[in-house]
């Protein structure tokens, strides 16, 4: 009995060693997690077809001429050369997109942070009400067409009416028909719309910060709310700051509907054209899929590139 048990134990350790080696083998680990893969499958199959494959296709077709009727023909860098050297409207829309993104991206990010931080100072129904007021514009669908009424160039326009009444203007301004006003006005509307998911993430992030950290900070000599914000709050909500940045940057580069709805499509002298409106023009109106894909690829690189850059910067907060 005793002998038998001993040998059992010995072979037991042997098999344990063997299984441990087996467990490290990739094929074993894949086989063992079959349940995980089955659960992942439905989502990632759809994700592949509607997100991964389209990106790969956009990159591939950007090197071809393709009108959806004939097979695509490979033309090398021609689309890109045309895009950057010959297409004046693209250069204009690239410039507009960069201006819009550089202004509304950071501005909306700081607005999200500022308003979330102040809202966090309030309590109960007032906090819930303020959250609703600031968040509502971003979810009201295309109800931003109300801005068309505000910026209307005829006498029914609210802004004109108000400024005329106050005597600031002598005659109605054609807001959306005057080139120099188009971008600033689009920026205002976009900022109004931009307190979205990132804003909610900030509000939520501020709520999770441990109260005892503020008490500790007060003992350490933090004197007012500004110091508290800089030394305690911001470092503690770094994960949310990074999430919010992704939301705001992607949004800032994707401005399109606001421009076509409010400034018209095409807008006066293409003053409201963005990369996305240009892309939709070629992709859904002219069906020059190769060229549209080149525009999409440029947009993709811009969005992902600036996101990566900002993530890298934000990682340094509090270090």
């Amino acid at each position, binding site marked *: 009995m005793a002998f038998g048990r001993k040998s059992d134990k010995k072979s037991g350790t042997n098999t344990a060693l063997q299984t441990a080696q087996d467990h490290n083998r990739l094929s074993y*680990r894949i086989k063992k*997690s079959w*349940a*995980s893969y089955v659960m*992942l499958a439905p*989502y990632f199959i*759809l*994700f592949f077809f509607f*997100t991964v494959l*389209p*990106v790969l296709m*956009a990159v591939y077709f950007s090197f071809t001429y393709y009108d*959806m009727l004939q097979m695509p023909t490979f033309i090398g860098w021609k689309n890109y050369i045309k895009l950057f050297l010959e297409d004046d409207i693209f250069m204009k829309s690239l410039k507009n997109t960069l201006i819009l993104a550089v202004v509304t991206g950071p501005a909306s990010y700081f607005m999200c942070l500022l308003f979330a931080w102040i809202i966090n*100072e309030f*309590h109960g*129904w007032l*906090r*819930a009400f303020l959250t*609703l*007021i*600031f968040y*509502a*514009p971003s*979810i*009201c669908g295309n*109800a*931003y067409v*109300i801005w068309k*009424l*505000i910026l209307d160039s005829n006498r029914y326009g609210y802004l004109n*009416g108000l400024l005329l009444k106050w005597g600031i203007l002598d005659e109605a301004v054609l807001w959306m028909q005057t080139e120099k006003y188009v971008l600033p006005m689009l920026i205002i509307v976009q900022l*109004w719309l931009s*307190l979205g*998911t990132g804003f909610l*993430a900030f509000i*939520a*992030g501020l*709520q*999770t*910060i441990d*109260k005892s*950290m*503020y008490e500790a900070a*007060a003992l350490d000599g933090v004197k007012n*709310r500004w110091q508290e914000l800089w030394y305690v709050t911001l470092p503690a909500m*770094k*994960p*949310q700051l*990074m*999430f919010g940045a*992704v*939301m705001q940057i992607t949004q800032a580069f994707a401005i399109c509907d606001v421009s076509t709805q409010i400034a018209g499509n095409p807008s006066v002298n293409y003053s409201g054209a963005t990369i996305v409106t240009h892309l*939709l023009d070629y*992709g859904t109106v002219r069906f020059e899929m190769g060229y549209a*894909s080149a525009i999409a690829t440029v*947009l*993709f690189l811009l*969005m*992902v590139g600036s996101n990566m850059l900002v*993530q890298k910067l934000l990682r340094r907060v509090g270090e």
Partner: protein
Amino acid sequence: MRAANPTTKPKFSLKRIFHKEKKLNRSMAGNTLLFVFMALCGVAMAIPLVMIVNNCLKPLDELFQYPPKIFVRNPSLENFTSLFVQMSESWVTFSRYILNTIIITGGGMIGHVIIASLAAYPLAKHNFPGKNILFRMVVLSMMFSWTVTQTPQYMIISWMHINNSYWALILPACSFGMGLYLMKQFMEQLPDSLMESARLDGASEFKVFWTIVMPNVKPAWLTLSIFQFQQMWGNTGSTFLRDEELKPLQYALMQISAGGVARTGSAAAVTFIIAAVPIIFFLICQSNIIETMTSSGMKE
């Protein structure tokens, strides 16, 4: 700094007004200043919303009044009645548009919540080869907007022969990245012991997912549904749907409000309906949404 158990997080409640915690480092002057600043910004943010509400109640003569007034004098519902008259005159019956919207948004919501949660569970709680790369792909997909993939997506959908059907809108909606991301981040906070005890009782992973995990992440899937609803609600579906009988309510409403000056009244009513529906949904689920967003942060 997150609490281990999501249910212990602070929630919006009336109680908090009456039992305020004393805050450190707050000066009276600072409080007043912030309050005034917030009031000003709040008014600025709210003016367009107030205009939407007032415009839909204005009778026609007030809509064309000069100089324009923000607030309505003699509120009436005539814009809504004229909208309903135009609805009843439409070629496809209006109940059909509503049914289409219910199928498309409902399918997109339910499909996405189930499929994304199913994928989020192993990403959050299992360890398997390829886990990190899959999740990184999803995070990367949040870094560009759908406009980038729109053109090739159109080709894929026509190759699959699902354009001009509900699937053309529902299937891509099921694979949005943000839902999976939020769900995974939220599920990560569930204590492992919760699932371990069920596994010891011999429950399969699917059973653990359905009977243990899903009931515990209710705020997250409510939030996902609301976000998904907001996305789907604004979709007119005009890129993929050719048959009038398949088009959603949003399309019909946009057609009515695009009718020019003669339709100004019903257009104001349409704008109100389009804005009000998602806002009401948010209002109902606000505390759940905030609770979900606490776990939205990106870890390095």
